[in-house]
């Protein structure tokens, strides 16, 4: 109760930076997350650059897709080309936020989740792989991939 009182009033003031570090609350409806994680809409251009970044978002490690370096992508996951036609924005959002909610066995990491798994290296502990704004950028880009 006390925690809720302390946190709630600060929520609207959540700046970009704190949103990036923490995990924002979200609601799963069916097999998607309808409401965006942030107030500001995602930027598909930033999302395209981020999705192609093998160190930061890691998407290309596993997925083929419309990425600039064709020979550097993985072959462990579905091709992301056309994903915006196959899936709704809400479905894409849940798959990027936490695909393990749909398939606990999947090798795809949950990008916007924090666990207390002690095997996580200290430098990454207590942080999601991607912040809310980054997820929204990637979702915005994937939603444009209609063919």
């Amino acid at each position, binding site marked *: 109760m006390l925690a809720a009182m302390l946190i709630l009033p600060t929520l609207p003031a959540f700046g970009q930076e704190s949103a990036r570090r923490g995990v924002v609350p979200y609601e799963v409806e069916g097999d998607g997350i309808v409401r965006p994680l942030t107030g500001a809409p995602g930027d598909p251009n930033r999302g395209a650059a981020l999705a192609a970044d093998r160190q930061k978002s890691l998407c290309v*490690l*596993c997925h083929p897709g419309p990425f600039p370096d064709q020979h550097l*992508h*993985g*072959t462990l996951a579905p091709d992301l080309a056309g994903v915006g036609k196959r899936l709704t924005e809400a479905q894409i959002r849940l798959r990027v936020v936490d695909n393990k909610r749909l398939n606990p066995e999947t*090798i795809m990491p949950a990008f916007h989740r924090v*666990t207390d798994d002690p095997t*996580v*290296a200290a430098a990454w502990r207590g942080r999601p792989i991607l912040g809310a704004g980054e997820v929204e950028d990637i979702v915005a880009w994937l939603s444009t991939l209609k063919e």
Partner: protein
Amino acid sequence: MTRGQRLSAWLLLAALAAPLALAGEIPRDQRRSGADFMAPETRAMQADDTANPAMLWVLEGDALWREPAGAAGQSCADCHGDTAESMRGVAARHPAFDEASGRPIDLQGRINQCRAERQSAEPFPPEDDRLLALTAYVARQSLGLPADPPDDPRLVPFQENGRHLFERRIGQLNLSCADCHDDHWGGRLGGAPIPQAHPTGYPLYRLEWQTLGSLQRRLRNCMTGVRAETPSFGAPDFVDLELYLMRRAEGLPLEAPGVRP
């Protein structure tokens, strides 16, 4: 060990020896060396002693083998004689059970144990060039012999721990060794082929490292890749993992010192 413990150790061993006992494991006839996944030029570099950079360490190992060391003033050769005879097959059956510590010891650990206890010298630090050179030199004497992990029931609990470490998901990316090396070998991770994770070429020269490195160094790379904590060099968990990897590789020819991209 009590009778009950001994019995369950044997049962475990029997289960491990049964073909296809566990899902996900690579069947024997599909086991392939990491070298099979390399470009032809890199394979050729490994196959040709005059082109394989790791052979420089083998030469250095040959010299160190004969060099007296420590307070005892004895060389490896003083005790073991001709390596081609005395060291043939040794790498193929390590890690092995070590009576002194009551747990498995790997080849590097054994070499450091001889150094500390029989030569009365300082053990080499991890990834020390001299330790890598001696390990490469000894491992080379098993070239072409099949990986032959000992059927020692005392090793079973440690091997099982190794299997557990291989199969559990770790790190921020929450992936297990098995996710990549049992279930997705042959696939590409960001353009690089995923090998089956056999330990049979180590220590080896990795072009990316531009030097020789141990199996534990390779394992740390994979752990860091999934953003997991890494055990320190020589940690018991590493040796248990190595033990399990040797069991997974049983029958594959040894190829140390190898070359990898």
